[in-house]
């Protein structure tokens, strides 16, 4: 089944660039150049995902998102030139599912689109059960020793696996490098915990779309690491 994606930005060149990328990935696209057109397009077409700019004439992305969320749960990814945290938080609070800051990497856009679509279409996601851990798209089956992100299996080293298991079983809790070392290596930490940081970075590269800007496995600078609570 091919998915239809609404691309909405007041800059036509960006829209057509995105159109080329998404079409080459096999998606159908619908174009809109402001918030009103986006609302109309959603009414007239069967849209599965929306990519939308924030700063647009007539009706901006935040208002459009708020309007759409009144009776719709189509995944929305905001494209924004604003890189301030406050704007991202506002966008997510208003009902957007993800955001990408401009200027964006086309590969990141494709990855995020895929991720959102998989979550939207895989009904209910992974069922909870003993030995099953999940946060967002990351799911761990402890019995099968298997980790999937958006359903795609990821291969991890045993240490990375154990670190991820520790963080997944306590979402929201911050673990310092020393704590992680003691729990995973089962050894008291004697200044050898700096390897933890390297492992975590590798882990981040494997499970995050943009490791420089992690959405789930977060670095709490000066304190440790945590798995974001949903």
């Amino acid at each position, binding site marked *: 089944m091919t998915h239809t994606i609404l691309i909405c930005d007041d800059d036509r060149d960006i829209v057509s660039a995105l159109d080329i990328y998404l079409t080459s990935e096999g998606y159908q696209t619908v174009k809109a150049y402001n918030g009103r057109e986006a609302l109309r397009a959603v009414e007239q077409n069967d849209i599965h995902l929306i990519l939308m700019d924030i700063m647009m004439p007539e009706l901006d992305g935040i208002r459009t998102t708020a309007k759409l969320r009144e009776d719709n749960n189509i995944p929305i990814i905001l494209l924004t030139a604003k890189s301030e945290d406050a704007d991202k938080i506002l966008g997510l609070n208003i009902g957007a599912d993800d955001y990408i800051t401009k200027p964006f990497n086309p590969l990141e856009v494709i990855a995020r689109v895929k991720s959102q679509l998989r979550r939207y279409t895989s009904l209910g996601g992974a069922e909870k059960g003993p030995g099953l851990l999940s946060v967002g798209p990351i799911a761990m089956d402890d019995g099968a020793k298997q980790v999937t992100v958006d359903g795609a299996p990821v291969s991890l080293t045993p240490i990375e696996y154990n670190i991820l298991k520790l963080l997944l079983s306590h979402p929201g809790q911050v673990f310092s490098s020393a704590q992680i070392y003691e729990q995973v290596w089962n050894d008291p930490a004697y200044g050898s915990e700096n390897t933890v940081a390297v492992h975590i970075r590798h882990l981040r590269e494997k499970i995050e779309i943009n490791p420089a800007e992690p959405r789930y496995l977060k670095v709490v600078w*000066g304190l440790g690491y945590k798995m974001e609570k949903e």
Partner: protein
Amino acid sequence: MKRIQDGIPGKLIAWMLLFCAVFMGASCGLKALQAAPYLGGESYQDTGQFRNLLREYRNQIAEAFALDQELEQADLTYVERQQIMERMQQLEQSLDPSATNFRFVVRSAGGKVVTSNLEEGTILADQVQEINYAFFILGEFFTSDAGEAYAAESSIPPGLSENTTSPGKTSQEKTVYTVECGVPSMDQLGTVQDDFAQISYRYYQTNYCFSQWLIIAGVCLAAAAAALFFILWAAGHKAGIEGIVSTWQESIFFDLYLMVMVIAGTALFALGWYLLGFFYSYVVERPQLEPEYGWLSAAVAAVCVLFAAVIALTLRTLAVRLKAHTLARTTLLCRVLVWLWRRLVQAGRWVLELIRSLPFLWKTVAGFLAYFLCNTVLFNEARYNALAGAVWWLLNLAVLLLLCWWAMGFRKLRRGSQAIAAGNLSHQIDTHHMPHNLRCHADDLNNISLGMAEAVGEQMKSERFKAELITNVSHDLKTPLTSIINYVDLLKTTGQTDPKALEYIEVLDRKSQRLKKLTEDLVEASKASTGVLSVNREKIGMAQLIDQALGEWTEKLEDRKLTVVTALPEGETWVYADGRHLWRVIDNLLSNCAKYAMEGTRVYLDLNRGHGQVTLSVKNISREPLNVPPEQLMERFVRGEESRTTEGSGLGLSIARSLTELQGGTFDLTVDGDLFKAIVSLPQAN
């Protein structure tokens, strides 16, 4: 209400009412005064007038007896005898029952009736209201009161027998007669119109009318007061004119006016008092039947009216002046005092100005000399004079207080300048109660701090404006940049085989990526330097942070063949900082190492703590010779080499410094040959 207040008729009526009321009140008051002596007692016989008259009649009896004795003397001339006879006749007529209501019985020492004016067969007790007992000695012209008890015994009064009737003297020489006399009560008074009848009539009238007179007098006084009140209320108001109108009376100085009025009032009062005394002696004390002295009471009332007029006029002009607020201006004394006060203030100012314009040094010397002189003189004097001693103490106390005042002012000034020097430009020194010279100084300091605060505020504003501008421009740059990056990327996928085209695409790709990095850094640098970033300071573990940072950078540094050597103190080192900002600082420093450090060298990370400070130093050997001083390295867009081919934007160190300062720390760079050292200091947390 306004019309009544303004109207002339109302005022005229009020004045008339005042005068009439005072006149009537005074007349009634005099009537009451006239009646006052008759007040009290149970009958008219209790009044003083009655007693006086009774004594007069009694004395007539004694006189008659005395004259009778004189007649028996043989050696009288005819004329004398005639005169005595005439007087005797007068007395007899006066004492005759047909001429008077006075009734009497004269008894000799033995109790025998000598003479009487009673009708035959009547006794005195039935005829009169009350019997009055008296005695007289034959040959004397007056009677003396005697008690009822001894009179009844008809004997010689005890005092008399001891003093005047000494043993051995014949009773013929000193014969004592007893007089029993009296007047009928009011109802039994006959038709004879004598003084007793008059007194009785007056008594009757008085007891009946006194209270009426008083009430009328009171009503009249109340009316006069009401009229006066109206006059004062309406004073100064005139029909058709708003506000208070002054008349010629108000153009006279109030104190002069008052003086004239007081003199007039005093004169009138004296006159009134004189007339009243006259009235009292003629009308009240000795009631003369004829004439009535009506003119006298009228004169007293008229004087009262004049007196009331004087008071009313004075009060009226006072009221007008008070209403117009011109009392002080139209008072001579007040004017003189104001004039004097102004001169005094002027003189005081002049002296103060003189003292102020003296140079400070002179003032100090002159003040000290004056103090020294006074002190010496008083100290010498104090040996003999206790007062001088006390003054000496007071003087020194005053000087001490003055010095304290100065010292306190100086301390305030010192604190203020310290605060300003410490950067608190909004601090204003409180110049209240400061000595003059210090206050001038404090004012200057306040002005400086105000000016500086303003300048700093201006600068902050312009910095913020700049930051906003940069942010906006960056946003606008990002949109076309997005297209460039994307289309360059798309261009790569078009299957170009021309090596030249591929090379050009590669250049486009690199430069667009660099442009992206530059715009991002630019926004961050401007935000960090203007302080618009929010800072959430919390307790951060430095060792943990360095560990995390190395985790991010180790591999990149190893790619550059750089070895990281860390020296951390035992245990965790805590600081108060914003984790994300501090990470950016260390990230920038390590990125710097990765970009500019010479390959194959070591990078040293040293963490130290002590004296409430935590310092992190990052040392590396520069690949290129560092030909710029460290201060310039922190300037924006300055990099360690002149050619701008490397990937850096030249903003990293500037951002690192701004972010460190935002968190309350300091950021220093030193360059020693090719050794590059960055030191980040932050306050330690416990």
